[in-house]
């Protein structure tokens, strides 16, 4: 395999791994997401707005 192709693929794999770790950090550790109690409740809320 060409050297620069090898480097590019290695970078992509490293980026994917870092991205997966960040996803873990955001969702499991930080719990940085909202929870909608009910889809219908949310719809009603949106309509009333």
């Amino acid at each position, binding site marked *: 395999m060409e050297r620069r192709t090898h480097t590019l693929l290695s970078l992509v794999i490293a980026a994917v791994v870092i991205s997966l770790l960040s996803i873990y950090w955001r969702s499991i550790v930080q719990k*940085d*997401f909202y929870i909608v109690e009910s889809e219908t409740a949310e719809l009603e809320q949106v309509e009333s707005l």
Partner: protein
Amino acid sequence: MTIGTMPLCPWEAPTFFIISENAYPLFYYAHFVPILVGGLLVATLLWQNPRSLAIRMLSILFAISMAWILLDLLMTATNRPDAVVFLWSAVVLIEPLVYAAALFLFYAFSLNKLPSFIEQAVMTALVAPLIVLAPTAYNIPGIYIEDCNADEGFIASHYSYGIEIAFTLWILFLAIRLIMRTTDATDRRKIILFTVGLLAFLVSFASGNLIGTFTGDWVTAQYGLFGLPVFIGFLGYLVARFQAFDVKVLTAQILVVATSVLVFSLLFIRTIENIRIITVITFALICALGYVLVKNVRREIEQRILIQKQEQELEVANKQQENLLHFISHEVKGYLTESEAGFAAIAEGDYEHTPPKLKEMAGGALATVRRGVRTVMEILDASNLKKGTMSYRKDTFDFKKAVLDIAAEMKPAAAEKGLLIDATIGEGLYMLKGDEDKIRQHVIRNLIDNAIKYTPAGAVEVRLTDGDKLRFSVKDNGIGITPEDMKNLFTEGGHGKDSIKINVHSTGYGLFIAKEIVAAHGGKIWAESDGTGMGSKFVVELPIS
């Protein structure tokens, strides 16, 4: 239900991470069949031909798909919203990578290469925003607690599908271009079948997830996963029909195991509402596999019978040809020997008043006839060796003397070409038990003679050393041996590509006979060369008596 302050989805935590009341039988069926059948196919292909680029790419594609399936299983089973957000985000990140791997596989299978650097850079540029934004709210901002489905952001609901469509179209474009350029009908059929199978997988996979994203019906979305077994079916057919991936798999065995897996996975269907459709799908798959299996086995049996018949015919024809060759050589040898005696008598002055011109002509004719006798003898010896009718004497003789005699005899022939024969023999006893004439003629003379013939200028080094075994070597700086020629060197009629241009009178039996004779004396012979123009070295090892 809550853990700490975090509410939980309205079902119990899963057992063994994947057994959950939120997952239904179809779900397990759709996930387990690809894992089992795909794993089986990839393991078999890797076992058969681990160095193939296409099989390696196929393994990567399956590994990423398996990771996707496993994460999807865990995601559906869990009742923890944070775990769902983690797994869902990861699934969105991994999904386009399945398509990228499929594109790599297409390049490897159809063009036997990987995408170029530029093409890989374009692929990276497409995937980069996804990798960067996957851990943000642009991917999965939140979750609906009542069914633990994610609220998908732009990345999950649009961008990832955009990449998938782009990669699928890329494959389609490459395939159409390649199909139009391919002139061989079999190759074209192979590429068409492969493309159809791969696209069936990619399109059904994306469609399933698109249905889930835009309708919220994640049950129907599961049918999208059935594209993978369909693709595996196409791959199995390609292997069976065209020996694709350069593997000669016992297709029958694989199909039997694949069918068993399908039937076994029916055990996961427990509820009545899904059993009918699943049974129909499984039955159809088993029928299709069974048809291919029966057809394949029948063809194999027919081929085997044909091969056996051809083998018998070939054996008879070979024997007839060998007998004929033996007869002709024997007859020709008789005529040549008589002529040899006649010419020898004239050349050596047995008749009185022979004009000098006639003597000179007879001398030339004698040399030619003797060459002819040697050639015929070589063919006869090869024929005897093949028939197993070669007999050997078992006398003790001095191998060193034999080498020195022959080196001295060959010196004039070498000098004619301006070559030097450098014979160096170490101290020691070189007594050998065997057939002196045959060793002299077919081993020592043959190797030195070859070295002279195939060396345009320089020297021929003849070495003899002792130790546990007697080691005789002839080294030249001649035309050398290519790795391709090296394979056929000691076989019957095993001419090198270039050697025949230099030595047009060669029968091609010389080294074959040498090898057989050395083997009959419990020794071995081999050649060493760094390639064309790099010279060669022939080594003989024989046990000392």
